């Protein structure tokens, strides 16, 4: 099993799926000849040509719609939207078309489209390049929404998503493309539903996805130094949220801290809280707490940006308070 970068895991999935099926094609801004802003399609333009690795004009809604149209007749398009902030421009095609076509056609036609888009807060990119829009897609009927936090899932989920008959939104993260992790040498298809326990523990359950999973892991290290054993759950899928895995963890720990990179109001933390309440209430010894971004457009200044975001220390503090330490 080799250790590879997250971006390379995404690239490998593209390559294998394009090799497997001539109707798989990729499109997006700068993904072809320039090689992809995050290198996720590096080398594929030379290998598969410009009909299958398409550099698009800066027209997010319409190139996404071209992907939708092609998917309706058997193609398997992978649309990259360079930044999730720009995906707002494509929400008509994603939310009004891709997510609804199967239903409003009475099941006559599906839309096996994959939309990949990195988001989250990287470093001082300002309010319009720091979007966390998972709530928007996770709140839409007819979509699957996954958030691979590790190279193995970035690889395996993209491969599964390409072959899935439903529209799948894969939310990646700008700050983790250079994360390294083990990916099986043989072909691997990750499930598009189901959370994973990424660190076992007995005192508290730390719940997160994408970047917050990495903050939770760092917090678990710090908590261990204080003798607190934290279990870390990476949700992986935001639609549906895997209540069963949460319940199994809470049956051990009985306490939960939710960390999300988005704001609290109507954010993913609210939905996770609802799942804990509905599915895990009788396992809980205390109300779950949440550590989220502040309710502000992301500032440019480094110190302000840091203050606006969760981090391991904030998770540790919230956990200590919850446990009465």
């Amino acid at each position: 099993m080799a250790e590879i970068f997250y971006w390379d895991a995404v690239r490998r999935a593209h390559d294998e799926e394009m090799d497997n099926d001539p109707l798989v094609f990729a499109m997006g801004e700068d993904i072809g000849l320039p090689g992809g802003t995050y290198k996720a399609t590096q080398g594929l333009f030379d290998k598969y040509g410009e009909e299958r690795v398409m550099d698009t004009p800066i027209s997010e809604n319409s190139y996404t719609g071209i992907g939708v149209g092609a998917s309706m007749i058997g193609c398997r398009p992978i649309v990259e939207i360079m930044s999730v902030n720009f995906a707002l421009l494509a929400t008509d095609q994603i939310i009004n078309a891709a997510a609804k076509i199967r239903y409003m056609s009475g099941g006559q036609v599906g839309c096996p489209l994959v939309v990949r888009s990195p988001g989250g807060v990287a470093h001082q990119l300002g309010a319009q390049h720091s979007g966390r829009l998972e709530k928007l897609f996770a709140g839409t009927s007819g979509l699957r929404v996954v958030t691979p936090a590790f190279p193995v899932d970035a690889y395996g989920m993209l491969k599964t998503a390409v072959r899935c008959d439903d529209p799948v939104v894969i939310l990646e993260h700008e700050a983790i493309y250079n994360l390294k992790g083990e990916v099986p040498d043989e072909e691997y298809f990750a499930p598009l539903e189901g959370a994973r326990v990424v660190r076992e523990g007995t005192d508290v359950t730390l719940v997160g996805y994408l970047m917050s999973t990495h903050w939770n892991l760092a917090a678990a290290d710090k908590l261990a130094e204080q003798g607190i054993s934290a279990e870390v759950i990476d949700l992986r899928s935001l639609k549906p949220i895997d209540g069963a895995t949460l319940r199994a963890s809470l049956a051990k720990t009985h306490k939960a801290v939710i960390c999300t990179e988005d704001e609290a109001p109507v954010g993913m933390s609210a939905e996770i809280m609802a799942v804990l309440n509905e599915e895990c209430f009788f396992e809980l010894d205390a109300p779950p707490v949440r550590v989220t971004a502040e309710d502000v457009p992301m500032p440019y200044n480094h110190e302000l940006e840091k203050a606006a975001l969760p981090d391991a220390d904030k998770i540790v503090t919230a956990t200590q308070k919850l446990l009465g330490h």
Partner: protein
Amino acid sequence: MEAADRKRLLQEMVFARRFEERCAEAYHHRDIGGFLHLYPGQEACAFGVLEKARVGHDYVITGYRDHVHALKCGADPKEVMAELYGKETGSSRGRGGSMHIFDVQNHFMGGYALVGEPFPLAAGLAKGAKMKGSDQIAICFLGDGANNQGTFHETLNMAQLWELPVLFVCENNLYAIGTSLERSTPMHDQYKRAEAYAMEAAQVDGQDIDTVMDAAAKAVDFVRSGKGPYFLELMTYRLRGHSMSDSGRGYRSEEEIKRWMERDPIYLFRDRLVEEGVITADDFDRMDKEARDHVDDEVIPFAENSPEPDVKDLTKYVLSDDDSCAMGQIAGGGK
């Protein structure tokens, strides 16, 4: 075109007109819910263009004024009416309604209620056909109002850039809902906007079906021969209001409506066929009665007597039935 074909074409148009008028009645009786946008006055557009395409083979897509396009593509009128009634036997199983008629078997890829949404979908259908090495083309019908959406510009740009086999048909009925072209768009000739993207384009009378068929034949040949997209603007008129909640008055003069009623595409075509000796006036009246009877005796009873969808199937069709992607157990995964 053979006389028999001309007669059949007129019969199809008359049927579509009576179908739509009967929809209006059913709407007033509240048998049809939601929004209802009818087509009378514009028949020469759908029939003229699609007569020159390969219906059932080429992909067709349009906006919310979609019943007649579906019928010309081969959709069963009983199923289209049942869809308007929201029944399980409807073309979209009662999940779509008037604005979302789909008949994928006949490659009618849907009506969409977001103005401008079908432009990129059509280009995507064309891209898919091209990737498959097929000689199919995609035909996108939309009104002039849709041309003020960003998707018009974005899609025409990409369709021309990538030489996609797509025919854009602009049914320019002069009104975007209740706002006239003069009051919404500084460039009144829509085909000139397409020309700004270096696209082949033409503008013709959309009330005269022979003119439409001539222009469509040229446009379809152009696209099918791999020369790239084509934009055809048909000058037409909506005899009714935008939807059932709009009388079509208020923002248009009686004089204007009267002038266009005199150019009703069905009666223009009838008069020509009578002149050519293809039919007599009596033949037309018989044709008209047959159309009304067909709608009253077969189409409406089918819709009325069909079952409602079962409520237990509420969540059917949200996602595919195949759970393998949820589980990561992809059939045939691996090479």
